[in-house]
């Protein structure tokens, strides 16, 4: 058994003090530890990340990992899951990764319903490249590439994922780790593509702690029906990633549908497949 402490590595942590990524890292450790207690073999777990501050998370966790390139987390995790569907696969991405450079892959992951969990560390700013606007920065965002303010409206990833057909759509807040842990755990347990947008303040370039602390509220069972897609759209529309009064967090939508890996593989496990006999195929070519 690996303890929470043993889940760490010798890599020096280089996130800024106060970074929202700590909340996500600690939540991950807790969730992985809990899942291990419930019987998950951590050797079967694979984490992936893109490029940006978020991505360092794979250096800080002593588990199998695929440190990918910018925007390209969904394709390798899809490849991993399809090659060996026995693996439990979690992708981490930044908002630049997920909603900018690699948005096509994200949409297709939702459309296909590949059975992986996808966690977006959404700080709404490019941190590692020192402060430019991202697809979810508010209109007018003043950054180093937009000194006179961003001329673009932000993208609403919750609406995007609902439209793309994701069967599990959630939003968390790095400042509410207990709630986030529940979301991540539900996401991992969900059979299908589980999308979690995590609001994550960037202490250095876009400190949104106070903003979120004032505005987030939890969608709770009993008061909210997460199987109602129309309701999910309504809640998703409550906040458009700009200004706003109330920001719902929690599971917006959850429905079990056949997954891509189930439909494509039909029980086959590619890493265990044995090649067929080509002689009989060649005979048909005479």
């Amino acid at each position, binding site marked *: 058994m690996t303890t929470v402490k043993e889940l760490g590595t*010798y890599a020096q942590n280089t996130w800024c003090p106060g970074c929202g990524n700590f909340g996500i890292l600690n939540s991950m450790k807790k969730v992985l530890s809990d899942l291990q207690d419930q019987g998950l073999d951590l050797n079967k777990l694979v984490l992936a990340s893109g490029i940006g501050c978020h991505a360092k998370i794979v250096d800080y966790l002593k588990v*199998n*990992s695929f440190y*990918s390139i910018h925007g390209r987390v969904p394709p390798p995790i899809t*490849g991993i899951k399809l090659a*060996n569907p026995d693996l439990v696969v979690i992708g981490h991405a930044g908002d630049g990764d997920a909603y900018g450079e690699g948005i096509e892959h994200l949409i297709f992951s939702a459309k296909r319903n590949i059975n992986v969990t996808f966690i977006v560390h959404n700080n709404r700013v490019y941190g590692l490249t020192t402060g430019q606007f991202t697809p979810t920065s508010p209109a007018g965002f003043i950054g180093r590439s937009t000194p006179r303010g961003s001329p673009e409206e932000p993208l609403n990833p919750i609406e995007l994922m609902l439209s793309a057909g994701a069967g599990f759509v959630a939003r968390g807040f790095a400042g509410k780790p207990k709630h986030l842990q529940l979301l991540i755990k539900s996401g991992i347990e969900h059979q299908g593509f589980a999308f979690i947008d995590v609001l994550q303040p960037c202490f250095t370039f876009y400190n949104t702690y106070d903003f979120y602390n004032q505005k987030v509220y939890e969608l709770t069972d009993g008061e909210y029906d997460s199987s109602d897609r129309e309701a999910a759209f309504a809640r998703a529309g409550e906040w458009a990633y700009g200004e706003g009064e109330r920001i719902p967090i929690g599971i917006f939508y959850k429905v079990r549908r056949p997954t891509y890996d189930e439909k494509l593989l039909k029980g086959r496990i590619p*890493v265990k*497949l044995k090649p*067929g006999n080509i002689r009989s195929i060649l005979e048909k070519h*005479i």
Partner: protein
Amino acid sequence: MKEISILIGGKAGDGIRQAGHTLARLLNRIGYRIFFYDDYPSLIRGGHNFSIIRASKKKIQAHKEKVDLIVALNQDAVDKHRHRLNSGGIILYDSEKVDSQGVGVDFVGIVKELEGVPIMRNTAAIGALAGILDIEWSVLEGVIKDTIEKEVDLNIKIAQSAYNSIEKVWLSVPKLNQKMLPLISGNEAIALGAVQAGLNMYIAYPMTPASAILHYLAEHEDDLGVVTIHPESEIGVALMALGAAYAGAKAMVGTSGGGFALMTEALSLSGQGEFPIVFVMVQRPGPSTGVPTYTMQSDLSFAINSGHGEFLKVVLAPGNVEEAFYLTGLAMNLAWKFQIPCFVLSDKHLSESIFSFDADPDKVKPEDPLLWDGQGEYKRYLDTQNGISPLAFPGNSEAIVKVTSYEHDEYGITTEESEQIVRMQQKRLRKKKTIEDELSKHEQVKVYGNLESKTVLLCWGSTKGACIEVAEELGLKVVQPLVLEPLPINSLKKVLSDADKIIDVEVNATGQLAKLLSAHGICIDDMILRFDGRPFTVDFLLEKVKEVLS
């Protein structure tokens, strides 16, 4: 008769390729060796399609401009190709649709009378052709039964009616006492070579002229034990394949130049992260969209120089179906042995032409990569004497497997320390020696023709077919490197050492192989370049070589 060439032409939608295919099999079944060239524009209906089927007693891997027979399903087939006819050649045409001299048969009428659909004119054409060539009816009937999927009986009736309408043997093609060989395209040979080397997953986005690899493997998934995937883009393709390889699946991707351009960031990741992966690049004329359904060898420089940063790769260039089969198998095995990207560089002419396949399937076998022994703590990038780190896969051992696009330490954690950076780059590049030793066990440079000749036709890839026949005719020597990266320069220098005149023959506008060899101190005397999207035919190249030699 030593050989016969037949052109069959019509508009897109007439089923020209299908008819050509049936004809090729017909000639195959009476003992001939086949080369089948398919010429079609990038459209679905209309335009002009034609196929040339050349059948010979001996093995051939090229076609000729000149033909002995033209089968015309429309007027264009006569008007555009009449000049190709050898003296004594015959035109077989649909008398309802085409105005020509030769043998007119009312294909439209036969199909109508038997209540077939218009595309079945191609069956009528094949029936009539079999009559003209004096091929036994039972052979044609067998081929139709084995090749046509729908309405077999109706097609047989139509073929028979056309066959019986021919009252005279125009050009007898005698049956040869040779064993029949499978007829496969270069793309099919690539697919089968990969399967034989243990392919688990083939991932590709459709792009002519590579799409047939995807189609073929998808169609035969269950028989071949392969999973095929068609993702959102070539970027997705290459990254998915790296994920699959990380998990332990042998993966291959295939595309043409434009698609490969999108894959180059993943290629570079495979260099940094040491992923075993096979890229099949089937060239077509560029730049950009270029001429999608025609052929070119203009991505040699691109392939060997692709990917940012410095890392090892192997580029293999097959020139016929046997080489496509063996070299794809080799690429797969090398990729896994050395944890590097390996390329199979084909082109439309090789990939979409059909050849008689004479290879021993058992010569390609999956070779085991170096696997972790399970002792101690696993380090994905263990710094070893030959640079090769043992592999482990997530989920099947106690190993924690960390792969990364960043420079990293042995464990796979990011580093920016100068000593580590140098150490890991040296570790990766150190594999070069072992790769070259391994490659030297294989045939890297082929030599054909008159080995004593001091005049050499230098070529690579599909151009070899025409070069060999021209060399045989003129008493010249042919040199064809199969490995283009790392270039087997010593082997090349050895076979070229006593050459007085090296004539470089390539299907591109700048002579990319010539440039590559010049950079290694091999002087090229002349270049014969063709870059109109068409491959060299034997007779076309013969004239060009004669011009250079005169």
